[in-house]
């Protein structure tokens, strides 16, 4: 049982993600998560704004069930399976973040500087999350996938568009962490 409560190393996490992909395909569907943003837009009536959303969302029910599972699984993990959220970071990472004003670096999964209730209710904190979300929603739809759809499914099936998309993910991620984060904090 001890293993369940310890953080899982990469050589357990990676294969279990691949097994999730295998099951998803075995059940008869393409593995990916970001299409759900579109589906939820359609359910909320986005088809009245743009023809792009005139799609039969009922065909995506399976994916919405997967999303519901993600939410339930998150609650189960956070409440019962992770007694200690410490992240074992490179001392260099800890020092860098401390230098720009982060406190208790790596003590929990999500830094208070972005995720605490106080931060979320500040204008800056709210906008950081909302705009990040907007980039995620816009970017995944424009590129046609996210980490699961492009990086894992697309690269493993040797698709060129996915290689380009992953290069894009890293261009954006590097700009964000090397330049934007130090500017924001």
């Amino acid at each position, binding site marked *: 049982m001890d293993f369940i409560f310890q953080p899982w190393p990469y050589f357990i996490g990676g294969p279990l993600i691949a097994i999730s992909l295998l099951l998803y395909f075995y059940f008869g569907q393409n593995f990916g998560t970001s299409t759900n943003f579109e589906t939820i837009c359609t359910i909320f009536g986005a088809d009245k704004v743009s023809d792009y959303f005139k799609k039969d969302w009922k065909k995506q029910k399976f994916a919405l069930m997967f999303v519901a*599972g993600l939410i339930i699984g998150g609650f189960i993990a956070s409440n019962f399976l992770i007694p200690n959220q410490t992240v074992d970071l490179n001392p260099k990472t800890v020092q860098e973040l401390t230098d720009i004003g982060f406190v208790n670096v790596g003590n929990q999964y999500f830094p208070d500087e972005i995720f605490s209730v106080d931060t979320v209710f500040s204008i800056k904190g709210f906008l950081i999350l909302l705009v990040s979300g907007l980039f995620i929603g816009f970017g995944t739809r424009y590129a046609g996938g996210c980490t699961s759809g492009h990086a894992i499914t697309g690269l493993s099936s040797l698709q060129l568009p996915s290689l*380009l*998309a992953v290069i894009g993910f890293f261009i954006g991620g590097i700009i964000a962490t090397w330049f934007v984060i130090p500017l924001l904090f």
Partner: protein
Amino acid sequence: MKNIKYLILGIFFAIVLSKSQAISWYRFYEMFKFQSFHMFGIIGGAIVISMIFMQLFKHGVIKDIHGNKIVPTPKKKGFIRTIFGGTFFGLGWGISGACAGPIFVIFGFKLLPALILLSGALLGALIYGVLSKKLPN
């Protein structure tokens, strides 16, 4: 009820991501800073093993639940679409430490931030949908 298996798979996937810390803001920060192997190991490992599965699909060794051949849908082509779209996503991912799947998993950890992230993502998808015909591919 035939979709219940996706619900269970979602729960499983969320637990895997949570337990391997692949939803932690810090893990993505250090990945983009190239200061740790952890996330490269997870994503790289998932890709390598998935490649083997893809070969088994291709040669018909593994078929789907209905006995059909498994063929992954080809991704939309286009240099600008993938590079620019990817960069936008990377920016959001790098700042918030959340990619598409984890946004939903984070609901169980940080409810309000997850709600704001999801609202942003829906708004972003809406903007894409409205502009989709005008954007270069």
